[in-house]
């Protein structure tokens, strides 16, 4: 991937320029202007800005940091080599790994157990940044509701098999098109970046 594939936005300059030209009073008026516009839209029925969650969902960014996905190799086996970089980087100490000897000597080491305690996780994405193998990425799934605490600890099987993530597509990951890894499932949309098209993309006209 070339650097030119990315659009560079200098946030600092923009923020500085905005701060310089800002008038506190005027900004407040502008803000309320937007509120009143939305209010009038509703009252007049010109445009509906509400969605019926959870049947409808807003679009999530492809940098969204939801629950994790463990990627796989070509043959479908786990990509993780159990280097513990994610566990080392994790500020919440929510990742626990057991390593084992891989039958293939060129791989040598793989994760026999890989648990993430989703209740402890703070979804900072450090594990994704730390991973040297692109073995852990994040999804756009964020609704972690369970009946017991035990089931909020996701094991390998669950991290590699994500029915929710199939619909919504992958989230935060270091290289937007995956270079070497594969997703352990096929996202609904063939392009993983465009997968998970939200139900409601444009405001509905009534």
């Amino acid at each position: 991937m070339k650097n030119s594939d990315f659009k560079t936005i200098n946030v600092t300059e923009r923020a500085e320029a905005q701060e310089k030209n800002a008038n506190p009073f005027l900004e407040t008026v502008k803000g309320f202007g937007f509120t009143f516009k939305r209010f009038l839209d509703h009252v007049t029925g010109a445009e509906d800005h509400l969605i019926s969650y959870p049947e409808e969902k807003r679009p999530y960014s492809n940098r969204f940091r939801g629950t994790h996905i463990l990627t796989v190799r070509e043959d479908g086996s786990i990509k993780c080599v159990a280097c513990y970089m994610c566990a080392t980087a994790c500020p919440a100490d929510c990742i626990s790994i057991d390593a084992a000897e891989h039958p293939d000597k060129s791989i040598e080491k793989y994760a026999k157990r890989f648990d993430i305690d989703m209740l402890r996780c703070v979804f900072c994405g450090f594990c994704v940044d730390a991973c040297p193998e692109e073995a852990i990425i994040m999804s756009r799934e964020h609704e972690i509701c369970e009946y017991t605490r035990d089931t909020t600890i996701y094991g390998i099987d669950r991290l590699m098999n994500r029915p929710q993530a199939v619909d919504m597509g992958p989230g935060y990951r270091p290289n937007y098109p995956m270079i070497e890894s594969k997703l352990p499932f096929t996202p609904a949309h063939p392009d993983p970046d465009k997968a998970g098209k939200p139900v409601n993309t444009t405001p509905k006209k009534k």
Partner: protein
Amino acid sequence: MPKVTINGIEIEAEKGMTIIQAADAAGLNELKIPRFCYHPDLPIDGNCRMCLVEVEKMPKLVIACNTPVTDGMVVHTQNDRVKEAVRGVLEFLLINHPVDCPICDQAGECWLQDYYMKHGLYQSRIELGEKIHKRKAVDLGPMVVLDSERCVHCSRCVRFTELVTKTGEMAFFNRGGHVEIGTIENRPVLNPYAGNIADVCPVGALTSRDFRFQSRVWFLKFTDSICNGCSTGCNVRIDHKTGTIYRMVPRRNVDVNKSWMCDEGRLSFHTLETVNRLLAPFAKGPDGQLIETEFNHAVDQMDREIGETVSKKGVGSVIGFGSAGATNESLYLMKRYLTEKHGVNQFEFRLEDEDKKVEEREDDLLRRTDKRSNTQGAIALGFADAALGGINGAAKAASRGDLTAAVMIYHPKLIHDLSGEAKQSLKQFIDSLQFSAILTPVRESWMDGASVLIPIGSWSEEEGTYTNFNRAVQRGGRAFAPKEQAREAREIFAELLGLQRPGYFVTQAEEVFTEMAEKVPAFTGLTYKGLASNNAKVPPPEGRYW
């Protein structure tokens, strides 16, 4: 005494030292010279060229590990010329390195990683595809795994097997970029010190099979201790995490174990994982069966019953039975408790005639036949009662009815099982007694007849000193707290004696040792803090009884 100036710091060196030895002896961090092949306990080889330094009036850079110091020598280890040379050497060493740190067990304590961050930081000129690939994950027997690609060819392992164990398994094969270490026909390294070649390896080429993939080293906590495997008392470092020991590695002590330890000792901590740990106190119920009780009840019962026996049948019917695996502090406090509080004067510790074989060697290097760490300490503290002569004598006295009560500390042997004979005598001894209290970290079948079982911390769970075969007193650290309800033996006796000072949770081993040094002639003049030095020795007991 030649005076050498290194980086502007004048240090005194001994005659015959090399530059690297003089710099190390100065003990200054800023004088640390990078090295791979130099090891203080192995002969100098000078092949890695990592320790290049500039000596004034010498035309070329010289290797610090093999250049003897002379008076007035001026050495530079940090100037630009040296820095560039060292970076070049490192780049050469890393030419064929696979950079597989994520799966390498050495990562975190790898000298290549450290030196790259300190002296390297260059852009690699070698593409990954251009590197020469060698054998990976080669099985070299039960102790080590070889990865040829990661090797820097320092020959430490070759020199270790040639000159320390004198078995000569390891050797170099091939030439040039294809050179690699290995054993002839890939035979396993089967000498009893094979684990050391993983320790001497500065990089990830030789790694421990036992520790392989168990944990990353930066998660581990380190506690300096003494190996409990035999009477040699090798200085070790216990690497542990959340109450589990992951590995043991030797610490350097020139007088005891140099930089080595035996494989039996290295793996001895696994014994503690397999034994049946006693985690709660037990006392004999009305039906004669041992049932779980409260800690204070068990200790009080022991105190009360011993007192009653002494008042009814006299002090001759009570015995204090120590263990050669316990610390000096525990043994001392046990003896003090029984003598001061109850007037008991019979003490014994021998299960398998440890005192007779304490100095006996098993091989030329380190191992000894006495698989107990503190036999000399128990002897010095007066636990060897000549009249009784070990557990056999005690068992006979008990079955005759001369002995009716006993307080016993028992520590399991970490290497080899207790002999069947000793176990039988123990069973006979315990079964014949009317009252017996055993302080033990494990539950074994011969203990079923005991009246009270009190759980204590095993080795690595109690702080204290051990006296080795040579009567060197050495400090063993506490890696983590005793499991569940168990407490340190020292603590239990200190509480019975009323030594617990207000505001302190436990009586520290240091306090006990200081008292012991004042009262026990054998320990006179020793200080707890001073035990780290190599000269802390107990003098031989007056009039040896064997």
